[in-house]
């Protein structure tokens, strides 16, 4: 188990470099958008990774509420944090792509808006975790995660209808993707998933360690005043 971490880390690094090479050089250049389209590989794979992490967060939260298992709570805390990280990448690369292609930084397009709302919900989740008093954090965070997950389809429908009413000013991405591009995208996604898993793993270990330290500290701390007396 101890060996697995560096081995997996090395593997991820190789995969990431290969994916980077494929995205920047290997993939064919898109006809209308040109080189800028290459942002796509990072943008989309980050987005999918983030959504997957949020899904994991939701499942872990349900498991926590059902079983009161502190490991599930640690998983939920970690996946929300890393999910927000990847979601931030999506929100930064998105406008960087939109500016040269559409001529605007931001548009209230379906996917963009949904991602932004998700990001807001999970940032509020992280804020809640930080501000709540320690013995209650897990339960109320899990409850908020479930509220957030339930909210997603509603956000989706509301924006979908909002958009059909006022057609967006930009031309959608449209068109089917070249097979070679699909290939590169999937490689990038795989690399990002491995990377996310790696971060989550180390972050999870850190979280567990922190909890252990807190517990030992709690049980030991009271020894000190006794020594003084």
């Amino acid at each position: 188990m101890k060996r697995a971490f560096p081995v997996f880390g090395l593997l991820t690094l190789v995969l990431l470099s290969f994916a980077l090479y494929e995205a920047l050089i290997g993939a064919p250049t898109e006809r209308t958008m040109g080189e800028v389209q290459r942002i796509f590989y990072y943008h989309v794979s980050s987005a999918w990774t983030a959504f997957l992490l949020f899904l994991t967060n939701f499942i872990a939260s349900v498991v926590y509420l059902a079983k009161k298992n502190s490991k599930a709570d640690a998983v939920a805390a970690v996946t929300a944090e890393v999910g927000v990280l990847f979601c931030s990448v999506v929100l930064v690369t998105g406008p960087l792509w939109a500016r040269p292609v559409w001529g605007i930084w931001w548009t209230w397009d379906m996917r963009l808006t949904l991602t932004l709302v998700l990001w807001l919900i999970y940032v509020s989740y992280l804020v809640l975790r930080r501000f709540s008093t320690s013995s209650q954090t897990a339960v109320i965070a899990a409850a908020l995660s479930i509220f957030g997950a339930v909210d997603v389809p509603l956000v989706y429908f509301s924006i979908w209808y909002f958009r059909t009413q006022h057609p967006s000013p930009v031309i959608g991405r449209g068109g089917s993707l070249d097979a070679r591009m699909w290939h590169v995208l999937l490689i990038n996604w795989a690399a990002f998933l491995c990377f996310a898993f790696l971060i989550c793993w180390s972050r999870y270990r850190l979280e567990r360690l922190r909890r252990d330290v807190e517990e030992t500290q709690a049980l030991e701390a009271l020894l000190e005043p006794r020594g003084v007396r």
Partner: protein
Amino acid sequence: MIYLYAAYAATWTIHITYLAWVLLRYRRLRREIYELRKAVR
């Protein structure tokens, strides 16, 4: 072209900042464990 590089740079800046932050927390924790061990002994 500049947007392309900006996006890739931004992605890695965000990731590396986060990793650095995790590392910082880890080191702080390590120090705490060290002090805890010392206190128990």
